[in-house]
């Protein structure tokens, strides 16, 4: 059974600081997503990572994938308050046709 573990689960940061959220998954997968959820809102896709060594960046967020270590990271650079949200690491397989396995989610709070 595929399992996805995120850490930390709670992250309180000051504005301007850097931090990394880690995501480990238990078995081979061929796609990894990072989603963001604001309270009471839908989950928004941030990144799709499909191959070993993939790195994607959008604004202050950068995601990477190491399929050999079964590890993905979401790096936050110079955090701002608008980044406060819950971030989910989500893993899937091409053969699972959209059946995804979610991590527990990391609740990020950025303080002034």
């Amino acid at each position, binding site marked *: 059974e595929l399992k*996805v573990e995120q850490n930390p689960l709670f992250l309180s940061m000051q504005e301007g600081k850097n931090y990394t959220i880690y995501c480990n998954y238990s078995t081979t997968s061929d796609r990894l997503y990072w989603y963001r959820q604001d309270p009471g*809102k*839908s*989950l928004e896709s941030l990144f*799709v990572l499909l191959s070993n060594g993939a790195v994607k960046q959008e604004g202050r967020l950068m995601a990477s994938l190491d399929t050999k270590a079964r590890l993905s990271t979401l790096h936050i650079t110079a955090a701002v308050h608008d980044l406060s949200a819950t971030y*989910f690491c989500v893993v899937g397989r091409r053969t699972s*046709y*959209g*059946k995804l396995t979610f991590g*527990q989610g990391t609740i990020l709070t950025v303080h002034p």
Partner: protein
Amino acid sequence: EAGVTQFPSHSVIEKGQTVTLRCDPISGHDNLYWYRRVMGKEIKFLLHFVKESKQDESGMPNNRFLAERTGGTYSTLKVQPAELEDSGVYFCASTGTVNSPLHFGNGTRLTVT
């Protein structure tokens, strides 16, 4: 483009009652998924429709849950009779092609008392 819409946003019912959740996917999306998050747990897959057919219902917890997608458009998820452990947030998602990122609705928060 309108996103995935779910109705109601909140529902509070008593144990033993019936509740029906509705999901309208993005127009043209053949693939529709139901997921749920119960208190303190991860978001978990329930089932997947391709048009009106159930592609995968391996995540449905028991036979108190019935999902339908008549005509391949909107979908309903009925819980009958509801139990306390059914409380949680039920998400619907859709996509045009199965390996594209899913588009999620805002979810329905179900509370069974």
